[in-house]
């Protein structure tokens, strides 16, 4: 698996665009760097992923969360249209990187907000997409046409879980973890209809970003402090690799937010 990351050189809580962010509670730059390095090493060494990096850009503190860059699929890169204005500057950097790496760049109409893998995850043969808080449902239709795949839109109803990857994590074919209160009743029904083995995550563990995990085969990298879930996942045959990511949770992100799957 190839992943894309962006080092946290310019990371910090410089604005507030989700309920986790509080400029009065800044991130510790040195600690954030250590946590990022440790995840980077974990992914390469423990999860055996191939990790590429994109150069960070000054003034774009959230560029570290590469999951929101867009969607890389079959040689195409659908670049994100960020809803928060403060993140829109990231798109040009991602576009340039993917273009340089041989991807065909696809842009969505300006009026369609789309925040990449943050709101679009594949479980088995089906893509699930979150909408309402950040991405628009109309962007899902456009992306579905581009990638020629089925995308099921799920309404996110809790501002604390503003991206799909904060409350839903595909584990394997027909298996995923999710935090039920983050979804409306129709979305929960859709998940139940399509994913036979749904592992619910408690409120405490959801707040530890348990669903914001990187899964490679049977290995899962996530933030620390999710004891109950560890037992559940281990009994389901997974190996849980915990790594502290508290400095990034201050910005509303964790392991999965820090990586983008590039095939």
């Amino acid at each position, binding site marked *: 698996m190839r992943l894309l990351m962006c080092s946290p050189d310019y990371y910090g809580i410089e604005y507030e665009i989700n309920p986790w962010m509080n400029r009065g509670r800044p991130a510790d730059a040195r600690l954030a760097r250590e946590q990022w390095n440790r995840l980077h090493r974990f992914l390469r060494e423990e999860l055996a992923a191939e990790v590429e990096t994109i150069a960070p850009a000054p003034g774009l503190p959230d560029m570290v969360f590469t999951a929101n860059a867009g969607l890389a699929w079959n040689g195409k890169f659908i670049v994100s249209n960020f809803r928060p204005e403060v993140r829109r500057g990231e798109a040009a950097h991602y576009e340039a990187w993917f273009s340089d790496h041989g991807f065909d760049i696809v842009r969505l109409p300006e009026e369609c907000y789309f925040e990449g893998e943050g709101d679009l995850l594949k479980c088995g*043969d*089906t893509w699930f997409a979150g909408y*309402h808080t950040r991405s*628009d*449902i*109309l962007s*899902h*239709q456009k992306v*579905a*046409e581009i990638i*020629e*795949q*089925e*995308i*099921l*839109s*799920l*309404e996110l109803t809790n501002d604390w879980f503003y991206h799909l990857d904060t409350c839903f994590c595909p584990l394997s074919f027909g298996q995923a973890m999710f935090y039920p209160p983050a979804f*409306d009743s*129709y*979305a929960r*029904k*859709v998940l139940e*209809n*399509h994913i036979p083995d749904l592992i619910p995550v408690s409120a405490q563990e959801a707040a530890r970003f348990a669903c914001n995990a990187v899964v490679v085969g049977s290995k899962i990298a996530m933030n620390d402090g999710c004891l109950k879930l560890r037992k559940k996942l281990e009994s389901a045959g997974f190996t849980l690799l915990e790594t502290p990511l508290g400095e990034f949770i201050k910005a509303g992100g964790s392991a999965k937010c820090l990586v983008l799957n590039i095939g």
Partner: protein
Amino acid sequence: MPRSIIQIAGHIIDSLILPKVLDLIIKLGAEFEILDIQIGHRRADRSYARIQVDAATQELLERVLAKIKEHGALPVEAEAESVELQPAATDGIFPDHFYATTNLPTWVRVKEQWIEVEGAEMDCGIRVDPETTRAECVPIHRSKQGDLVVVGHRGVKILPMERRVPREAFEFMSSSVSTEQPKGLLIREIAEAMKKTREENGRILVVAGPGLVHTGASRHLVDLIERDYVQILFAGNGLAVHDIETALYGTSLGVYLDKTMRASEGHEHHLWAINAVRKAGSIRQAVEQGLIRRGIFYSCVKKGVDFVLAGSIRDDGPLPDVITDTLKAQDLMRDKVRDVRFALMMATTLHAIATGNLLPATVKTVCVDINPAVVTKLTDRGTFQAMGLVTDVEPFLRELSQYLNPAENATEQA
């Protein structure tokens, strides 16, 4: 009823987005009808639905549209275009190619919202005031220089009637004219529609010709007036003249209504009647002075029923109440039909067609005449909602009056 057509596309079935949008429409208090749905065959194929949304008010419609838009349901593009407006260069002249109205409920798209055109009337223009976001039907002669008038058909939508009239109400409404229809059923249906109109505080308009007096049907119309089934009466000089002739002399066109014989010099009666009312000043004054003591217009005055008498070129007299300037009469009739909900036209061609031209298609309209051509003419001129009944007006009104008379109904049932 305010309406919009929306479309929704994508993987709307498996994602339950379509049922969610439909549930939302209902939860918010509006109604929907799926006009078209195409389900994708393969998993990657997208599905598509076109849905009509009806709401009781424009505000509710806007609220519903805003809410379902969040779930990907958008007004179809053709609907989102605004009307083209051009100013009238001079009083009484519309811009070229102005939109000519139908009598159907009509909406125009102005400043990204649909507004209902007030005073739906056929063969008019639509004047829009973008400041107040109001639109109204205006006849050519009433337009003023600088009025912004809708040109072309873009951004205009009309509602077909069949979607608005509930099936169970006025089931027999049709413009088919036949002398072979089962009249009893139709008349009962008309009586029920009139009762319902009054229960809902709707106004009933009667348009009548002098044949009503000649055939001795006046007393049934008086009965309807006394029972509050008539709120406004349109007629010409003739109806009033012969009604008053009967009140004063017991004849109609010189024929005794109770003796089936001509009065000696009876042809003078109606002229003397005209003269007497002219001397009194008006029909109302003639009633108040005790000159007129019975009849249709006596009851109208006593019950406070509004009447408009429009003149024509062949009128004798005319009576002082008759408006001889046809445009003035038309304008007054236009103003008076605004809140009419039911129109009953009997034994008149001229006034039936004149009134039909002014009525919105939402007004239930019944046309009764011994001559089938009258109903045909009325419907051919655009009053397609009119239900025709080919019969002599006296038996019609007698039977209608019976249906509307609770005492007689009770006797019948006993």
